[in-house]
């Protein structure tokens, strides 16, 4: 029976090649999108899974509650870990781990340098690896990371540096200028879906070379973190009391600013909590994952709607078969099984094609994520399970309703072909078309708004000129610092170089240093001032406008602040001139305001301009901003690199254009824009081939009516209008239905930007025009053919 069903299914699909093609195309494109979305979501959800005792592992984070805002850091104070180990009951293990970047030099046996690279290095206490269990190929963390100057490498790093794992053991590597580390352990490579992309792990004691003040409870750096494993049977709430006591002792009693507290964050949340940083620099909000899942569901639903519509429309053609089968003793259940078999065959064919499409799309998808993630169609058994579920889901969703309808025909009527489907009034088919097009229109509107907003972000004047300004990293060691003035002197001689300014960061940057301060003797409690350290050339180089006073004098240390208008507004000064001479104390000394700079966007346009104080501080210039002439960019850049490498031979050259960096801040929005464009195209494609199928069917069904009307004198245009009418009305209604939902979605998305386009009516109107126009073209194409058919041919055979 089953084999026969398959055979019949195949013959039926073949007989209605056109509709089968439409169904398969729609389903396979929809399924391919779903598979790709699933692969992505699975990758994201698989982060930090599979560690032993995962349920008891927590990261300690730091939260602040200021009057005006909350702040969050993934880091803890340096003394935290040691203190917590002794004072908080219920901890089985606690281990600190910190991340920095530094330059690693590898020398061969003769002492000649063979490799130099800038790497993220981690400083970890051995206890950390009792919490996060990873496989060690050589050595044990307890011994390997016990002594200062010992280092453990991942397998890949060992191979990169020394050719093989065996070769690496006992070898030494140089970090920075002088620190000699000896390789004492090798551990497995960390997977891509890990928040711990460990490659080089150094004994924790070495960290103290970087952080002098080991006793500072309000110095928090997000890269100094601490992990703990709770005792068996305990959960986070069991430690609430102990944590509260601890927070009181070290923060409240010490009167540390901002109601600073430490809190435990479960391992499973690290990848999904965007408020806190992590070592992999990869977080994704669960909301985004759900959003993608919903889009996937939308796509597959529209494809299913095509199927349902075409199949119920064709149901009449199969009524005879149903009637005959029923009087031969076929039960309704058996007929349902037969029709579902047909659907499943179709879905399986669609799945095959979907797999091919996915395979072809995967490189593009990896490209979208800058090739940092490698996806694979057959990378994980769960993907197969998903495919099976997908087939079952689609088969059922798409197949069940038509099967119910068709199998429910009354045999006496069915045999005489007298079955009538509810063609008038509010049939399910019409509702489905409206739903399908409502989804399509929502995606079209979303795409238009996102594209507009991205254009707006790119075109909005930021208040400074950063074109052809390149930021070059500057080494921070003393020898290199001493060479800066000579470097600058030589750089300015390179043809095409106009200006150079040493600074902390470009005007728009997400690397934020902020501090509390007293203004004219009174402690400010409302906000933290963002500080920016630059030399005096910065203003000219970035074309920043001074609206009162002047730029501070050339100096190695802060001798005067230039503040922005927002700062003045926040401290309540209306006239810029009045601010001059007022004292700001952010560093322990009172320093006067010497100038006021016109507001410019110092953060991505998702956020408002912050109150800003700019001053000189030679020790905090990490970069050189170099203004180039547009004409000879490439040659100037090459010369800068050569000069840099000669001047700072122990370091690694790194340069990028300010504009590229700014673009980088909108990476996730950029990806979202592309995804929306892709999904909107897919859904438009699916919806409109569905529509094409439906109009083809309607036209075929009404051929006789059309012919008779023609004989009675209807013009082709009138007939086309008649056939088109209901479709255009349905799409119009779909637009009306879609608008409120689209409005909710886009206004929510836009609210994430401090600077955004005004949401006007026209994206909605445009979406309507697009959808109506495509509908009109699709439908007219087919209905014109029907209206233009030869009347006699039609009537003769009736």
């Amino acid at each position, binding site marked *: 029976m089953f084999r026969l069903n398959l055979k019949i299914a195949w013959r039926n699909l073949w007989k209605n090649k056109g509709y089968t093609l439409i169904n398969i195309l729609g389903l396979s494109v929809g399924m391919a999108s779903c598979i790709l979305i699933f692969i992505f979501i699975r990758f994201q959800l698989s982060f930090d899974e599979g560690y032993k005792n995962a349920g008891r592992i927590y990261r300690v984070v730091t939260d602040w509650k200021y009057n005006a805002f909350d702040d969050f850091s993934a880091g803890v104070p340096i003394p935290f870990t040691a203190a917590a180990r002794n004072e908080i009951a219920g901890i089985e293990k606690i281990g600190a781990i910190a991340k920095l970047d530094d330059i690693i030099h590898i020398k061969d046996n003769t002492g000649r340098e063979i490799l130099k690279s800038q790497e993220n290095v981690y400083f970890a206490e051995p206890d950390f690896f009792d919490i996060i269990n990873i496989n060690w190929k050589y050595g044990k963390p307890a011994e390997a990371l016990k002594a200062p100057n010992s280092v453990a490498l991942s397998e890949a790093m060992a191979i990169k540096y020394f050719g093989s794992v065996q070769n690496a053991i006992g070898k030494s590597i140089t970090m920075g200028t002088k620190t000699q580390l000896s390789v004492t352990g090798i551990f497995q490579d960390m997977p891509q879906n890990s928040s711990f992309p460990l490659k080089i792990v150094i004994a924790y004691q070495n960290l103290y070379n970087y952080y002098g003040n080991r006793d500072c409870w309000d110095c928090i750096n997000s890269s100094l973190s601490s992990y703990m494993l709770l005792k068996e049977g305990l959960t986070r709430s069991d430690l609430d009391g102990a944590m509260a006591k601890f927070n009181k002792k070290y923060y409240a009693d010490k009167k540390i600013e901002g109601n600073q507290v430490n809190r435990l964050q479960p391992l499973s949340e690290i990848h999904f909590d965007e408020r806190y940083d992590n070592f992999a620099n990869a977080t994704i909000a669960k909301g985004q994952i759900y959003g993608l899942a919903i889009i996937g569901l939308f796509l597959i639903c529209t494809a299913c709607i095509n199927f349902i519509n075409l199949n119920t429309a064709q149901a009449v053609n199969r009524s005879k078969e149903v009637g*005959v089968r029923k009087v*031969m003793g076929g*039960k309704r259940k058996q007929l349902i099984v037969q029709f579902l078999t047909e659907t499943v065959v179709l879905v399986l064919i669609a799945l095959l094609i979907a797999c091919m499409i996915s395979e072809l799309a995967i490189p593009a998808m990896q490209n979208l994520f800058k090739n940092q993630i490698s996806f694979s169609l057959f990378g994980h058994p769960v993907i197969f399970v998903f495919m099976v579920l997908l087939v079952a889901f689609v088969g059922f969703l798409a197949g069940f309703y038509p099967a119910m309808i068709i199998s429910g025909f009354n045999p*006496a009527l069915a045999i005489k072909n007298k079955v009538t489907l509810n063609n008038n009034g509010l049939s399910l088919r019409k509702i489905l078309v409206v739903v399908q097009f409502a989804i399509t229109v929502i995606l079209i509107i979303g795409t238009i708004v996102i594209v507009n907003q991205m254009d707006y972000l790119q075109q909005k004047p930021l208040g400074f000129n950063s074109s052809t300004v390149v930021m070059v990293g500057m080494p921070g060691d003393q020898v290199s610092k001493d060479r800066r003035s000579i470097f600058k002197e030589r750089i300015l001689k390179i043809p095409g170089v106009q200006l150079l300014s040493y600074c902390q960061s470009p005007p728009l940057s997400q690397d934020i240093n902020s501090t509390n301060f007293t203004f004219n003797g009174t402690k400010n409690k409302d906000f933290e001032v963002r500080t920016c350290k630059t030399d005096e050339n910065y203003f000219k180089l970035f074309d920043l406008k001074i609206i009162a006073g002047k730029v501070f004098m050339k100096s190695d240390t802060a001798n005067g602040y230039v503040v922005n208008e927002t700062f003045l507004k926040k401290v309540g000064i209306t006239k810029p001139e009045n601010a001059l001479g007022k004292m700001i104390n952010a560093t322990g000394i009172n320093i006067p305001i010497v100038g006021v700079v016109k507001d410019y966007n110092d953060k991505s346009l998702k956020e408002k301009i912050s109150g800003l104080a700019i001053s000189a501080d030679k020790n905090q210039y990490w970069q050189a901003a170099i203004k180039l002439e547009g004409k000879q960019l490439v040659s100037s850049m090459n010369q800068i690199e050569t000069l840099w490498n000669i001047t700072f031979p122990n370091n690694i050259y790194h340069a990028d254009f300010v504009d590229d960096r700014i673009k980088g801040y909108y990476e996730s929005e950029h990806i979202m824009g592309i995804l929306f464009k892709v999904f909107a195209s897919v859904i438009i494609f699916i919806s409109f081939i569905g529509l094409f199928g439906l109009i083809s069917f309607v036209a075929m069904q009404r051929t006789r009516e059309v012919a008779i009307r023609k004989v009675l004198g209807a013009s082709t245009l009138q007939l086309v209008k008649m056939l088109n009418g209901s479709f255009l009305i349905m799409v119009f209604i779909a637009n009306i239905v879609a608008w409120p939902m689209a409005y909710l979605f886009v206004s929510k998305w836009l609210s994430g930007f401090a600077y955004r386009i005004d949401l006007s009516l026209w994206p909605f109107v445009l979406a309507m025009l697009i959808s109506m126009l495509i509908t009109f073209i699709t439908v007219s194409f087919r209905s014109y053919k029907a209206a233009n058919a030869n009347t006699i041919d039609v009537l003769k055979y009736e």
Partner: protein
Amino acid sequence: MIQLNNIEKYYANKGVKNYVLRLVTTTIKQGEFVSIMGPSGAGKSTLLNIIGMLEEPTYGTYEFMGEDVTSLNERKRIELYRNHIGFVFQAYHLIDEMTVYENIEAPLLYKKVGSSERASRIADLLDRFNIVAKKDLFPNQLSGGQQQLVGIARALAAQPSIILADEPTGNLQSAQAEEIMELFKKLNQEDGITIIQVTHSEKNAQYGNRILHIADGVVKEDVTVA
């Protein structure tokens, strides 16, 4: 075998009852070959549909093989279709997507007949109707008469005790029609299968042994053919 008592069928339209059948009472015994005759719209097909349980009478009772089947649930009705009733249609109603062989096999599959038994029965039928060579053809590759042969073979596959035929030769040329009628006669006489057919043709009616004349929903005449 079939006992109809005061069968009425009407469609109510705006309070007006349009009668299709009025007070039909008749008995059809095992082994009879009954032809239902009458002008268009007389209610012949409705009567056959009621006998075939495709429609329910509005009033009256119907006993099939001693059992009251006036209103029967689907499960029981399907049991009767599987074991006792075979249908033959004017437009043959073979399933277009299935070959001759598969069409004949379909009712056996529903009846859950074992595969070897199935094969032998089908072979037997193909042989008997001389359509062995056509078993792999699809219905649209056959002539009307051949299609109707397949239709009858299909109806016989489940070894029913009664065949209900609605104008079985209505779409056929006379030569083919004769062939089909001869076949019915043979089935009735040799195999003892009860046959009820609806027909327009006096000539076809003569093949049977009893004629029910119907006009305006009423049995006007019930004659036995010599």
